């Protein structure tokens, strides 16, 4: 894979550094949240994205700032990579007024940032398929040149909304890119037990679109295929289905004891760790400096969020109506 598709004029190495910085920041964020959940408990459900940060950050690295993002529920890597403020993200998680949702968040949150094109998430899996296609339709209608990227899991790929959105998006050549994080599990269901084909990407031909499989632990490779798909979408050639192969390291939610799981990966082992894969290409000193800064950024943001006030209960009546 060449670097022709990277979205701006920086060198490939500069990109790698930037991606590493984000991946490692998300990693520290993941660990910080886990620590908090383990120590303090948690209202709601936190779905850790640890181990999947590389593909999240890699794919988003191929987007333009104005492009639209519908993220999935596994972690906050997507939103951070798209430019959202960490304190706002932690604030959402902790139900603080500084959260991007003004404190309505908490648990499996609905981050959003109109400014960064982070359009949110539906709590019902697969609803993002139709919304994402619709946003791409708006871009086509307005001629604004934006592309919409929609993340989803291997489990969500079974929802009928996929079928309805994908057929229409393909026929209308909508500028949308679908990124499947295939981590092998949908809660307790193994992908291999619930899919008639070995890969989600095998379904792409039914929709007349390219299906691309990529190693989801290789952030740079994910960036490259996503960049190609985004280019194609922006050229008006329609959607692409990208399947990033990854692995769910932890339970479905933090605290899930995974009684259903017999595979090797347990606890903290991250095979083919995207942090290490990227890190290998960076000089040790530089990497240490990035790591230290990332850790500090996370600590400061988390502390700021923790210290922020909770919203007044009256906010429940806000934002029902525009």
């Amino acid at each position, binding site marked *: 894979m060449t670097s022709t598709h990277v979205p701006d004029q920086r060198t490939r190495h500069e990109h790698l550094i930037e991606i590493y910085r984000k991946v490692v920041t998300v990693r520290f964020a993941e660990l910080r949240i886990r620590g908090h959940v383990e120590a303090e408990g948690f209202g709601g459900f936190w779905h850790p994205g640890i181990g999947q940060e590389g593909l999240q950050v890699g794919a988003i690295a191929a987007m333009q700032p104005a492009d639209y993002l519908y993220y999935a529920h596994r972690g906050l890597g997507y939103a951070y990579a798209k430019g959202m403020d960490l304190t706002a993200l932690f604030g959402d998680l902790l139900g603080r007024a500084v959260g991007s949702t003004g404190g309505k968040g908490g648990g499996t949150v609905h981050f959003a940032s109109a400014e960064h094109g982070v359009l949110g998430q539906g709590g019902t899996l697969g609803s993002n398929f139709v919304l994402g296609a619709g946003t*791409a339709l708006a871009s086509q209608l307005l001629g604004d040149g934006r592309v919409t990227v929609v993340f989803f899991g291997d489990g969500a790929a079974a929802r009928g909304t996929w079928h309805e959105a994908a057929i229409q998006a393909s026929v209308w050549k909508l500028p949308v890119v679908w990124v499947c994080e295939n981590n092998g599990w949908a809660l307790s269901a193994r992908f291999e037990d619930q899919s008639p084909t070995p890969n989600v990407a095998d379904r792409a031909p039914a929709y007349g679109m390219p299906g691309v499989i990529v190693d989801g632990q290789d952030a740079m490779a994910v960036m490259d295929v996503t960049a190609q798909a985004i280019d194609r979408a922006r050229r008006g050639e329609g959607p692409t289905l990208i399947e990033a192969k990854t692995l769910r390291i932890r339970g479905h939610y933090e605290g899930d004891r995974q009684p259903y799981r017999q595979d090797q990966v347990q606890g903290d082992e991250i095979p083919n760790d995207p942090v290490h894969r990227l890190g290998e290409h960076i000089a040790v000193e530089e990497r240490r400096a990035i790591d230290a800064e990332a850790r500090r950024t996370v600590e400061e943001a988390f502390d700021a969020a923790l210290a922020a006030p909770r919203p007044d209960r009256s906010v429940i009546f806000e934002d029902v109506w*525009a």
Partner: protein
Amino acid sequence: MTTTQAPPATDRVTSYSRAINEALAEEMRRDERVFMMGQDIGTLGGVFGLTRGLQEEFGPVRVRDTAINETFIVGGAAGAALGGTIPVVELQFADFLFTAADEVFHKLAKWRYMHGGQFTMPVVVRLPSGVVGGAGAEHSQSLETIAMHVPGLKVAVPATPADAKGLLKSAIRDPNPVLFFEHKGLYRIKGPVPESSDVLVPFGSARVARSGTNLTVVATGLMLGRALEAAEQLAPRGIDMEVIDPRTLVPLDIDTIVASVEKTHRLMVVHEASRTAGFGAEIATQVQERAFFSLDAPVWRVCGTDTPLPQDPDLEQACIPSTDDIVTAALALAAV
């Protein structure tokens, strides 16, 4: 359709469906961000002909035929609204709310709230509703109450051409999602409609379709005409009915209804939707909450049966209130 006011000089008589068609065309001319999608709305002009001529005027890019994919029609509209457009979509039958229910009741209704108010959701879903003669159990329902129960959706139920046009224009300009229940049985009725393209009917303002003194009747959609007919039949029998059309259920202009009941002391709600847990119950409850000591008798309901709707056109009529049913009930209620 009986109305008490003569049409003002600047009105002309046109049909309910034509009025809707005009509203769509005018709003699309006014604002380029408005677009439409749905099944068969383009080349065909809609199964009920509501969008006729619009693809010719606005082109296939702004008036789009979709595949049979209600989740996309509504969910795609939600996404398109987030992307800066104003989608006005049609489900071929209001019942198809159920084939896109997650999109309607979760995405449209709650997206803004769930994401802390950062987005607006200016989507109109047009919903041909009610019995039309043989369309069957899954193509004839009146589902507006469900929309009323789920917070975040505005709900319009126009009963006249003028209201159909004026409310639809308001709906398209509203930054909130609106479920727009058009009654299929009214598409051909005619009535006065303002000439000007600037006349809007605001949401949340009930219309007193007939003023009276003995008994208040609240009715919507197809039932409004039947209630007005019943009123004419009852007048010579000494019952002077006030007939109120709320026009929108969310927001609901309960003040106008309560004021009427404070005058008449008796209330009857007539709706086509099945009786149990229909919007008649909500109106009855709010009225007794607010005007309990003004009521001389219980609030009664004349409603659709608690059955699915049969496919047969004659049997289907047996499932919804007739003018006779309203007359009979009114006589009985007046006697309580």
